[in-house]
């Protein structure tokens, strides 16, 4: 089994998620080749074949061109699977490659089992097993679902170049809002989710964070609703954190949030729904009303 892994380069950096692709391939037990639109100043620590296109001329986001490059590599490598990370780069590019190859695409894979790919569905509450029916298949893997694998070594670089116009122009990046809070460094984070009920209840969560000597985090819906500032958002569009202790209050566990905190050492989730998806990754699930439990815990901790 052969895989062509599509790495990602953004804002001048090779993303670590590239190594998760290798972790995935290892679980499949497949041979690998890597493709990257990047720079030879930052080559991955990988000893296999690397198809490299120069990001300076190709651009970091240029789906038409990147697709052509991938197709070229597919021609040469003839892989069974073309694998992307399910990121804003991957989910944008993968269907284009799949359409060009008329290949099946399986998105956001979280596990491989019995020859089928396991993906989440229904807001991560359920699972689906999917089998491609085409000779080649495009796969995108969920960020953080597969272990990082840095095999080390120096790649055998094959240069790629493609030209031709692009149907869209990438104008540039817009920086994220300034963060007053760097959750990435916090050791303890207590996060508020929609389950806290209303904006007035945020101080209750914040009080627990303070009592524990930690920081306040928030899920996306809570930030969108204006209850907490964006700088506290944990998740794919917020910050990715890995504190020693993460307490999720009234957070159901949408994938995007989990992706941002699943690497925490110890996770306690408080939710009145016993089957909330966050229970999947929590070390402890406290089935209770957030607004009853949290003040009680804060009171005890403060003593």
């Amino acid at each position, binding site marked *: 089994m052969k895989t062509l892994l599509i790495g990602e380069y953004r804002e001048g950096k090779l993303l670590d998620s590239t190594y998760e692709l290798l972790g995935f391939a290892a679980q499949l037990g497949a041979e690998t080749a890597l493709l990257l639109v990047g720079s030879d100043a930052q080559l991955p620590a990988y000893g296999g074949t690397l198809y490299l296109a120069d990001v300076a001329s190709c651009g970091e986001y240029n789906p038409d061109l990147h697709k052509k490059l991938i197709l070229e590599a597919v021609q040469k490598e003839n892989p069974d699977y073309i694998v992307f990370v399910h990121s804003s780069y991957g989910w944008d590019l993968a269907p284009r490659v799949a359409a060009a190859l008329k290949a099946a*695409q399986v998105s956001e894979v979280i596990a491989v089992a019995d020859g089928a790919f396991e993906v*989440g569905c229904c807001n991560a509450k359920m699972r689906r097993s999917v089998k491609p029916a085409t000779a080649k298949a495009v796969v995108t893997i969920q960020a953080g679902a597969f272990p990082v694998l840095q095999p080390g070594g120096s790649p055998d670089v094959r240069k790629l170049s493609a030209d031709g116009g692009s149907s*869209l122009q990438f104008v540039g990046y817009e920086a*994220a809002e300034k963060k007053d809070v760097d959750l990435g460094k916090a050791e303890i984070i207590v996060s508020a989710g929609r389950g806290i009920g209303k904006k007035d209840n945020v101080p209750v969560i914040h009080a627990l964070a303070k009592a524990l000597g930690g920081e306040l985090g928030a899920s996306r819906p809570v930030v*969108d609703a204006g209850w907490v500032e964006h700088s506290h958002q944990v998740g794919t569009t917020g910050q990715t954190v890995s504190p020693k202790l993460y307490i999720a209050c009234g957070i159901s566990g949408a994938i995007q949030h989990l992706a941002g905190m699943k690497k925490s050492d110890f996770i306690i989730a408080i939710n009145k729904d016993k089957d909330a998806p966050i229970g999947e990754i929590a070390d402890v699930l406290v089935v209770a009303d957030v607004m009853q*439990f949290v003040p009680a*815990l804060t009171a005890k901790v403060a003593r």
Partner: protein
Amino acid sequence: MKLLVCIKQVPDLESRFKPDAAGVWYNETDLAFRMNEYDEYAVEQAVQLREKLGEGTELTVLSIGPDRVVEAVKKALAMGCDNAVHIQDTAASSKDPWQIASIIAAYAKDKGFDIIFTGMQSQDRGSAQVGVTVAEQLGYPSTTTIVGFDFDNGTITAKRELEGGIKGIVTMKTPALVTCQLGLNIPRYPTLPNIMKAKKKEITAIPVADLLSTDALATTTSFHPPAKKGGGIVLEGDVGDLVEKVIALLKDKTAVLR
């Protein structure tokens, strides 16, 4: 200008999901349905554009599925779409993204749509494939996950939402397709006069067989709840007891509260 917005009706995510008889998708009994949340933003953006362009613009909303999807279609009409297409398919949920995209592309290919709006993904299947695949089949440029949209003189300027809160700015010329992310705008609540006008708007029904000509490229072999993770403790009971237990765990398992 001709605009198209593609929507999907999905179950309300608060529901408890159980596998259907074949074990490959959810059983529809006792499920409440609503428009896919991402599609609400797509409809709102399409309607805003339609209002901005004014006379001479036509906005069509399309959905594939059984008769119940007409409710979601009517909501889109009440938000401001001009007319609708219901591609009748009682087995829509058994089609893969490739088939769904092919159906839409088959419908759209001779209609000359200038801009197509879709949601970034559906809340039930969530494969995030259909939008871009439609664009590829039609030969339209496309970009995904937009949280900002502007159209001026044949050019779309879109802001893509990237990881870490950064945005990527992209421009493309029409005809083109965009997939919409949550937070792109604030979807309007339909006013009653618009709800009543919507009752008179045309909904063209097309049997899916007229448009489908491909087989699925992938099959779902199982739909099941996740295996219970070993090691996770579930605590229930009186709040006072729970607090004691959690404090004990914090002392035992973490360095907090020594």
